[in-house]
């Protein structure tokens, strides 16, 4: 049967931050929207996340951080993807992230950042509008 491409995404928790409630809720919302969601679990280094994303051929990496290390961790993921010529994989993120940092992150290649209270509907819609499964 000819199947059309499915959207494949990864939800990852970088760093030592143990808050995984948000990441799990996002993973479920993505599944319920019809995406295939690879979940990495807690305590991932940027290197581990990028390697896993390449092996899994995902279209997007969603990073979750509530412990304050987002600037270093998110940007490290973006940088590594570039190094590995895999920057067709979109990076977005969420968690407790101050407005100033959001600006900085977006300037450096994180496509979007969602803060607490964002309705899941909006988060899912954003993927539908911005992520297309790879075409080639």
């Amino acid at each position, binding site marked *: 049967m000819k199947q059309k491409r499915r959207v494949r995404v990864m939800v990852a928790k970088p760093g030592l931050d143990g808050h995984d409630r948000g990441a799990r809720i996002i993973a479920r919302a993505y599944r319920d929207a019809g*995406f295939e969601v690879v979940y990495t679990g807690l305590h991932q280094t940027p290197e581990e996340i990028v390697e896993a994303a*390449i092996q899994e051929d995902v279209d997007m990496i969603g990073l979750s951080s509530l412990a304050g290390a987002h600037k270093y961790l998110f940007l490290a993921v973006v940088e590594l993807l570039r190094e590995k*010529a895999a920057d067709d994989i979109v990076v977005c993120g969420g968690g407790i992230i101050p407005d100033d940092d959001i600006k900085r992150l977006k300037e450096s290649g994180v496509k979007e950042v969602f803060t607490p209270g964002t309705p899941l509907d909006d988060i899912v819609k954003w993927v539908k509008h911005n992520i297309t499964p790879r075409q080639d």
Partner: protein
Amino acid sequence: MNDIVEKVVAGDVRTVARLIRDIDDGMPEVRGILKDLYPHTGKAYVIGITGAPGVGKSTLVDQMVAHLRKRDKTVGVLAVDPTSPFSGGAILGDRVRMQRHSMDQGVFIRSLATRGHFGGLTQSTRSAIDVFDAMGKDYILVETVGVGQDEVDVVRSAHTTVIVVIPGMGDDIQAIKAGILEIGDIFLINKADREGSDKTLSDLRLMIEMDHKKYDRGEWKPPILKIQAVFDKGVAEFIDEIDKHAKYLAETAGGLDFRESKSKVRQELGEMIKARLIEEVIDRLTESGDFDRAVESIINGKIDPYTACENLVLPIVS
């Protein structure tokens, strides 16, 4: 295209990852690539790991990878999780237990969603195994979705099929008996740190002994091991049993290369024909519009579905 084959054989991770995606998504271009990869396959040892949800399959696979790496073997892992029948989406969570191997260049882990396929695997698994094989992985570990009793696809592709149970699954073992007992080459009682593993062991032993005539003829007798995957207890011994089974296959049961086994090739070709036929027929009928017209006719009471089906299929196959 040959470029892709070359890169796969050279072990290029991104190429392999993308090719498996193309297979999974049913891209027609992959057929030619798979044909060209076939001569590069037949070297890997394939192990299927199956068992009810939550018995510890992923935890076990993670430990197996660690042991095999200590022996300097390269490993590919295919981990299957179920697709939600409601949304078509899936949470692929097996990887959580294996992420410590993410950075190891000798390990390639890929999560797959069933996408409506029954049998514990995905439509794409067989070909994904071939791709890992061609890229040079020594061992390929396939974790099925938590199976019921008749989901045993993995047997067709695996040299060794491993059935994982946990203590206190009394009734479930009865269920296993009905379907998947016959297909197990090795039985593991995981979570043996919990109460009841001796009871489970004797239950299983009893059922396996019922086939004693087979073993008297020299056929493989499945060993039963108590293990604690999460504490890495019993895993080394389990891998020794896999070695014994491999030796048995090589020396007694007609060799390790499935491509030379008549029964395996028969099954495999049969399955391939089935899948391809359905694909071709449905494609043709939807493209011509005959399929939708037949649906309309059935709804309007002009024809019954049995006749409609015959009218659609017979002209194509005759």
